[in-house]
């Protein structure tokens, strides 16, 4: 427990795809953060961190979205995001997008220091472990690239998942190899992306696990979509859902 | 192409003053030399450790290791070199023929007594030369071009014998750099680290790509 604040005010940034595609991850995040002793707020006017614009080279548009985000979130003690790549966008890249704007650069630097990916926040800042959560399943874990390489997220989700009773974790060969999602890459170069995720799906199937977990919905959607299209029975969920005790619900692509 | 030279150097001078990443403008030669020297500091932090405390043992471990793939013999003195070479050739099923580096220490030996026919032409046959240094870190032997050291012979032979005096074995690559520092650089300084190999077809290692198929190092003395 490295936190100096007893009941920090946390702004939850759900991310644009969680907002639309899988609200369950947002609810799981709220539940976990509250259990970890935080006062959670979900700013109603939040939209997107700007990552698609940034990675497309549209820096002006990115800067505008970054300013909007900073305005909405800078009052919180912490900003928590259930996605490694969106958290990395705020932590690592807002400063690049606002490099030419002195005043906003300072605000971006401040916000970067208090922005966390959900599982690393729970583990490192709050020292949180789930209690009395159970899921009888064998799961494997894919490490999404941004979280892994830009934020050093590797052991944090595994430490949390180990505290889930009856859950067995099976190593995934090539767990740190990109799944081929890459944001807009997966639609711009869909054939290449398909070849990459095809290999990933084979590796996942090869583990014999019934459940694939990860920390980034974009990557999880890519892998879940490929797995289901190729007839695999592997179910896919965000790790936060399992840790929050929502692992018995519908997986990605299953009817609610 | 003086024009090209001037324009390239001019362009570098101009961009030195922009202060972009990786550029620092207007630094004098002494400062550059000091900075370059500092980049060589603390070599222990940036180089591999030797497999053993003994430099010769380390050299042998590295040279015999899978990555270098040389064979190594140790003999007490030069007199037994022809017999050692003859034994290797017999064992390898090669003819008892050899081309040798035209240097007095090899020419003085009695090769005929060991049953070896010393020949002038080398193509694909055996060749013996004396190395100037050995380097334990990499299992390399070093030859320099000279009047008595034709470079081509080391690359045209099929079986390469390198004679290495135990006291000429250095620990690390930096020790070799220090040993030649200030000397006039030879036309060719070759660090030979195994036989000629290729992985160009499917990444599969094959020895004898163009040059030697085998490298046999004979360490003399220090036994």
């Amino acid at each position, binding site marked *: 427990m490295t936190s100096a604040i007893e009941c920090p005010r946390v702004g939850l940034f759900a991310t644009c795809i969680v907002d639309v595609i899988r*609200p369950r991850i947002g609810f799981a995040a709220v539940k976990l953060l509250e259990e970890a002793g935080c006062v959670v707020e979900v700013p109603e006017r939040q939209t997107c961190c700007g990552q698609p614009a940034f990675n497309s080279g549209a820096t002006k548009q990115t800067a505008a979205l970054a300013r909007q985000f900073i305005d909405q979130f800078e009052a919180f003690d912490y900003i928590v995001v259930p996605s490694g790549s969106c958290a990395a966008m705020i932590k690592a890249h807002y400063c690049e997008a606002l490099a030419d704007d002195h005043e906003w650069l300072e605000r971006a630097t401040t916000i970067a220091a208090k922005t966390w990916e959900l599982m690393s926040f729970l583990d490192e800042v709050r020292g949180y472990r789930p209690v009395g959560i159970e899921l009888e399943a064998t799961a494997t874990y894919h490490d999404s690239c941004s979280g892994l390489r830009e934020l050093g997220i590797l052991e944090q989700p595994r430490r949390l998942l180990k505290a889930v009773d009856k859950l067995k974790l099976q190593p995934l060969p090539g767990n740190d190899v990109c799944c081929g999602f890459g944001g807009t890459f997966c639609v711009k170069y869909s054939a290449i992306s398909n070849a990459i995720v095809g290999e990933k799906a084979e590796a996942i199937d090869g583990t014999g696990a019934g459940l694939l977990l990860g920390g980034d919905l974009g990557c999880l959607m890519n892998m879940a979509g490929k797995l*289901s299209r190729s007839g695999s029975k592997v179910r896919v969920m965000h790790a936060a859902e399992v840790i929050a005790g929502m692992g018995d619900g519908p997986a990605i692509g299953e009817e609610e | 192409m003086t024009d090209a030279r001037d324009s390239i150097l001019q362009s570098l001078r101009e961009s030195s003053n922009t202060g972009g*990443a990786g550029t620092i403008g207007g630094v004098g030669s002494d400062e550059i030399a000091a900075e370059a020297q500092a980049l060589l500091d603390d070599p222990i932090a940036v180089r591999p450790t030797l497999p053993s405390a003994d430099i010769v043992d380390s050299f042998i471990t590295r040279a015999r290791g899978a*990555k270098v793939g040389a064979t190594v013999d140790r003999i007490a003195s030069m007199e037994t070199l022809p017999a050692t070479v003859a034994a290797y050739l017999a064992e390898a099923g090669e003819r008892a023929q050899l081309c040798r580096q035209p240097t007095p220490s090899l020419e003085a030996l009695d090769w005929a007594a060991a049953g070896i026919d010393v020949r002038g032409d080398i193509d694909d046959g055996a060749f013996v030369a004396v190395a100037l240094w050995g380097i334990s870190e990499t299992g390399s032997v070093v030859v320099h071009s000279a009047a008595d050291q034709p470079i081509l012979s080391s690359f045209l032979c099929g079986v390469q014998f390198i004679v290495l005096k135990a006291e000429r074995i250095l620990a690390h690559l930096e020790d070799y750099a*220090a040993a030649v520092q200030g000397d006039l650089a030879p036309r060719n300084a070759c660090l030979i680290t195994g036989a000629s190999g290729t992985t160009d077809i499917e990444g599969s290692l094959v020895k004898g790509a163009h040059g030697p198929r085998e490298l046999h190092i004979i360490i003399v003395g220090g036994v």
Partner: protein
Amino acid sequence: MQVGMTSFKARAKSALADATLKTAIDRTAGNAETKRATAVGEFPQFDAARRRGRKIKDHVIANLEHYLTQFERNAIASGAKVHWARTSQEASRIVIDICKAANAKSVTRSKSMLGEEIGLPHALEAAGIERVETDLAEHIVQLADETPSHIVWPAMHKTREQVAELFKSQHQELPASDAIPDLVESARKDLRRKFLNADVGISGANFLIADTGAICTVTNEGNAELTTTPPKVHIVTAGIEKLVPSLGHAFMLLRLLVRSATGGDFTQYTTFHCGPKRPEDADGPEEFHIVLVDNGRTKMRRELPEMLRCIRCGACMNHCVVYRQIGGHAYGATYPGPMGSVLTPVLDGLKQSRELPHACTLNGKCAEVCPVEIPLPSLLRGWRERSWKEGLEPVTVRAGIGGWAFVARRPGLYHMATAIAVRLMRLFKRGGRIAWMPFAGGWTEYRDLPAPPKKTFINAYHASRRGAKP
């Protein structure tokens, strides 16, 4: 250069359809990946070494003028003739002129990516000079009349079966079988004669040593020495970024280069060449020429200085998920993979090659394995930014990203739009999935899309909060 002949996407598509290509790439790149991991694992100082390597390169790049002139001075003192070339055309013309002055009929070449960059193979052919590629992979590429598909393994795209076919149809000494050792033996016999009959030998340089004027070549085959020793003339072509202050600095970088490239600890033949044959020497070339090539490097020093650190190890492409699927030729440029996608816009122009920086998932693996810490994903993103600014991005992309960003900056409008999007998407759902939907073909052609629930998170969360607190 194949850029412009077909589109990147078309080349990638045909590469994806080629199962043999995938087999060939996986055999070699997979091998290289494993060997590198082992070599780095056995060298716990690797991280410290690469920080040092990066500093050495940055120091040289910052003081390039100093080191170039120092190198030139020492090279001339050793008897070398130093030439300077601003462009690829200038560089290949200098080489051809030296060959012509030497009355060269046959030229041997030891693999050099710079030679490919400046179009030397083509220039030699155009000048009617026989060109003999001596690196085994380059020899294969030459027989197949292709270009290299990888900077360390130019024939990575070929399986042993394909190599056997080439050798059987074109070697005088036919291979005894399709086994790789027999193929290598067949090439050995074919090339040996040619080494000894060449009039000029051309090599690249892995390093230029400023304080001695020597150049360094590294090979495992020994073809560099066989290329440069027998002919009367040795020509070196080298990019101006290849400088290092001294031998000691070269060794520090060599430790990184070899482990990152092949997973070895040291190349079999690491040779420093300094000037022509001395009067007392037993052998060696009578003339030694060094062509120092800019070709965009001074410009890179202003705009992309980090890229001048590159020591051409190829680790970024071996570890690139995109390269591993499509191979090198699909990039349509001299340098493929992540480093190539940064370099090609410099060499060929961004307009020609704007697709390359986009054909990347920005997963960061290339930067993780780079032995000199080049931030390749940032540099690739930098090209995307430039392409956007210069208006080179297609109208559809600009409109799509621009329109979406416009809406995302207006939260009220945005949440109305997401609510509508959810309703529309649900029209196409079957069970929990969407297998096809208009405007989502890029996704649904290959994968299912999860159907969204009725309410977005923001709506559902705030609705429940309002419900809980009447």
